[in-house]
């Protein structure tokens, strides 16, 4: 438990095995940013192959085995691991592990998370899972190569999958521990006066996210155990009778069903989409309110919409499975729920847009990222509708259109929002502001090249190019007219990587030389800004916190300044 901070801590206790939520949040943040970068690198190698098939890969070619050309087996590995790393080791740990851990206790005026040791266990479980995933590249059988969805029967026969499953068990455990902790923290440790409808939208978003993780992840853990049994103990949960593989009938008992995996997998993986997007929406909400200097429009409807979104996300999963021969009745059911779930997303987005109305907007770097989030997530969301309708999904299923759709949600959507969060809370974490000039140099090229990478995917997808082709579709007649986009997308991706250099420089330069700021540089209202920057170790605040008002009381008529902090009477 968190002791009083008087006793001396050595380096290990302070920075490595700390139980302080701020240190754990930073550990999560640094690790997940490194994984994001690594996952991005995997993708760039793949993009090289797609743009210039079977030519030597520059810079990292020597890592790819005897020839420096990307071989199909390794291409599949990179594909599977790109998805796994970006989602389970990158974005979720950054959004939930890092921001949830660091910001939530501060925003609710708590001294720490409810269970500090569990919190540390959550990080270390994540760390072990990450190490296992990385180590799988160096094992003789290689990393997993059945896609991040690991559909059987392929995943039962392909090498490397066992390591992936073991890694996943650690990652799932980590998420469960972390999200349990967030739920208990938010329910139990809110400061006096901080009632449910005075919580910042970010806390609400994290609360719903935590519930999604706690209730949706365990079925995937169950499925992972079953798949592990299939691989290790030669059971046949996911293998039907009479299955032929490599020309021979597979010697197992049979009578299993590959569809079972898809059900259990998507029972997690659809709520997971909202795990990715909700914390991002939370960050955007806070940043927009702060930089428009007016209350977030429709705060209560935002809260209700996100709760409804969370609930509905559990009953839409089979829209990923329209092509499994599902009957019309169930197809109709899942189409309907899918159309319904788009309503709360639209409510949230609309409320953000209306919040901008009539505001004198401060175009700070976090605000630019938050503003870019709105149309980018809008494109991602709207392009999802055709995928949610069975008839159009038949054409679009498993094409680059799908890739374009969810990357618009996650990359220029969620990741932009996470960047907004980093720029926004950096002064709280370090006591120094990040450079605005470098921030803008980071933002504008990122925005342009993001679209350069993902927009052509819609064109290719509508033409029917499959998402899993090693050569980008060279052998298919229907792909010939859109092949030229491959090079354009790849070059955009490399430029996007270059656009991150100002960000990396900005982080390190600002950490040591940035403009020093006091505790509330943005003139924000929420509770975390009443703590010192950086907050007190193991306590966060100097004294007791009490909350007197709602989260977004900006420009209150009659007030002496344009923001009225929650902690001031």
């Amino acid at each position, binding site marked *: 438990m*968190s002791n009083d901070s008087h006793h001396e801590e050595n380096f290990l206790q302070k920075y490595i095995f700390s139980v302080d939520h701020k240190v754990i949040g930073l550990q999560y943040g640094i690790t997940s940013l490194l994984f994001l970068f690594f996952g991005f690198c995997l993708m760039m190698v793949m993009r090289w192959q797609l743009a210039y098939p079977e030519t030597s890969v520059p810079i990292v070619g020597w890592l790819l085995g005897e020839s420096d050309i990307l071989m199909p087996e390794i291409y599949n590995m990179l594909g599977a691991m790109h998805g796994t790393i970006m989602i389970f080791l990158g974005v979720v740990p950054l959004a939930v592990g890092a921001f949830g851990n660091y910001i939530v206790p501060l925003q609710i005026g708590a*001294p720490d998370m*409810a269970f*500090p040791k569990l919190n540390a266990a959550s990080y270390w479980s994540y760390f072990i899972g990450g190490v296992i995933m990385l180590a799988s590249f160096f094992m003789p059988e290689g990393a997993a190569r059945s896609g991040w969805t690991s559909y059987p029967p392929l995943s039962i026969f392909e090498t490397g999958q066992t390591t992936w499953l073991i890694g996943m068990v650690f990652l799932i455990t980590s998420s469960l521990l972390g999200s349990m902790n967030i739920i208990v923290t938010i329910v*139990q440790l809110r400061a006096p006066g901080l009632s449910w409808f005075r919580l910042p939208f970010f806390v609400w978003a994290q609360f719903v996210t935590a519930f999604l993780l706690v209730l949706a992840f365990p079925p*995937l853990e169950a499925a992972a155990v079953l798949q592990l049994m299939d691989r290790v103990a030669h*059971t046949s*949960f996911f293998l039907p009778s009479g299955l032929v593989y490599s020309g021979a009938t597979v010697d197992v008992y049979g*009578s299993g069903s590959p569809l*079972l995996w898809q059900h259990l997998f998507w029972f997690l993986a659809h709520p997971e989409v909202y795990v990715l997007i909700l914390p991002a929406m939370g960050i955007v909400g806070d940043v927009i309110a702060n930089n428009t200097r007016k209350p977030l429009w429709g705060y209560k409807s935002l809260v209700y919409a996100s709760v409804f979104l969370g609930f509905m996300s559990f009953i839409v999963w089979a829209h990923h499975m329209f092509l499994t021969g599902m009957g019309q009745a169930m197809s109709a059911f899942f189409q309907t729920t899918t159309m319904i779930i788009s309503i709360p997303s639209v409510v949230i987005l609309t409320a953000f847009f209306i919040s901008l109305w009539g505001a004198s907007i401060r175009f700070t770097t976090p605000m630019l990222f938050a503003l870019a989030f709105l149309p980018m997530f809008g494109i991602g969301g709207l392009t999802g509708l055709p995928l949610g309708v069975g008839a159009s999904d038949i054409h679009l299923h498993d094409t680059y259109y799908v890739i374009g759709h969810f990357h618009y949600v996650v990359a220029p959507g969620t990741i932009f929002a996470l960047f907004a969060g980093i720029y926004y809370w950096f002064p709280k974490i370090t006591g120094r502001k990040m450079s605005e000039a470098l921030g803008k140099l980071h933002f504008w090229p990122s925005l342009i090249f993001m679209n350069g990478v993902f927009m052509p995917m819609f064109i290719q997808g509508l033409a029917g190019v499959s998402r899993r082709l090693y050569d980008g579709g060279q052998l298919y007649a229907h792909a010939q007219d859109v092949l030229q986009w491959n090079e354009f997308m790849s070059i955009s991706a490399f430029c996007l990587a270059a656009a991150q250099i100002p960000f990396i420089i900005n982080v390190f330069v600002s950490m040591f030389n940035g403009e020093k700021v006091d505790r509330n540089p943005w003139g924000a209202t929420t509770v975390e800004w009443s703590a010192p920057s950086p907050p007190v170790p193991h306590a966060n605040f100097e004294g007791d916190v009490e909350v007197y008002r709602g989260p977004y009381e900006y420009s209150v008529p009659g007030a002496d300044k344009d923001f009225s902090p929650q902690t001031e009477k």
Partner: protein
Amino acid sequence: MQIPYIVEERPDTGLNNSKLGIWVFLASEIMLFGGLFSAYVFLRMAAPVGDFAYWGSKLSIPMATFNTIVLISSSVTVIMSWASLKMKDFEKYKMYMGLTLLCAFLFLVVKYFEYTGKFHHGIYPSSSTFMGIYFTLTGLHMLHIIGGMIVMGYFWLPFGNKMWQSDPERFTNRIEVAGLYWHFVDLVWIFLFPILYLL
């Protein structure tokens, strides 16, 4: 600064942190076993008619009935150990907790004979889909039993005495929370018993 509501209850929720924490954890456990139960039903429907019943008849009902009674008894002893702490009777707590651990151990012994009996007859998880799900479900359940034994064993050993002396109320809460987990393990078995052995 101390984290609030570790022992005392938060006025508006009426709960302390660990009580809420264990219930959220149990909610996730419900979904874990729920996923597996769902898999069981799905596989049973996918299997040829009578396949599950045929393989299920190879399991020993007497052994499982005995184990059910053992596990139910352990549920009673664990709650009695908590009630003893409520009445400030540490000796009785020790006795009941010891009995709980004994029951858990007995359960594992019976399970060991069940497993090895199957292996002797050449029955492995790969023998049939039913056997696969049987070994997976009972194996995972057994891991939960072992996990519970580690936690309760820790509180039963001299560490428990120290905790009891330094903060009796918090120790009582810990036993209550461990007990809740233990009841859940019992509860899972209550469903495993009929679906695996009787149907």
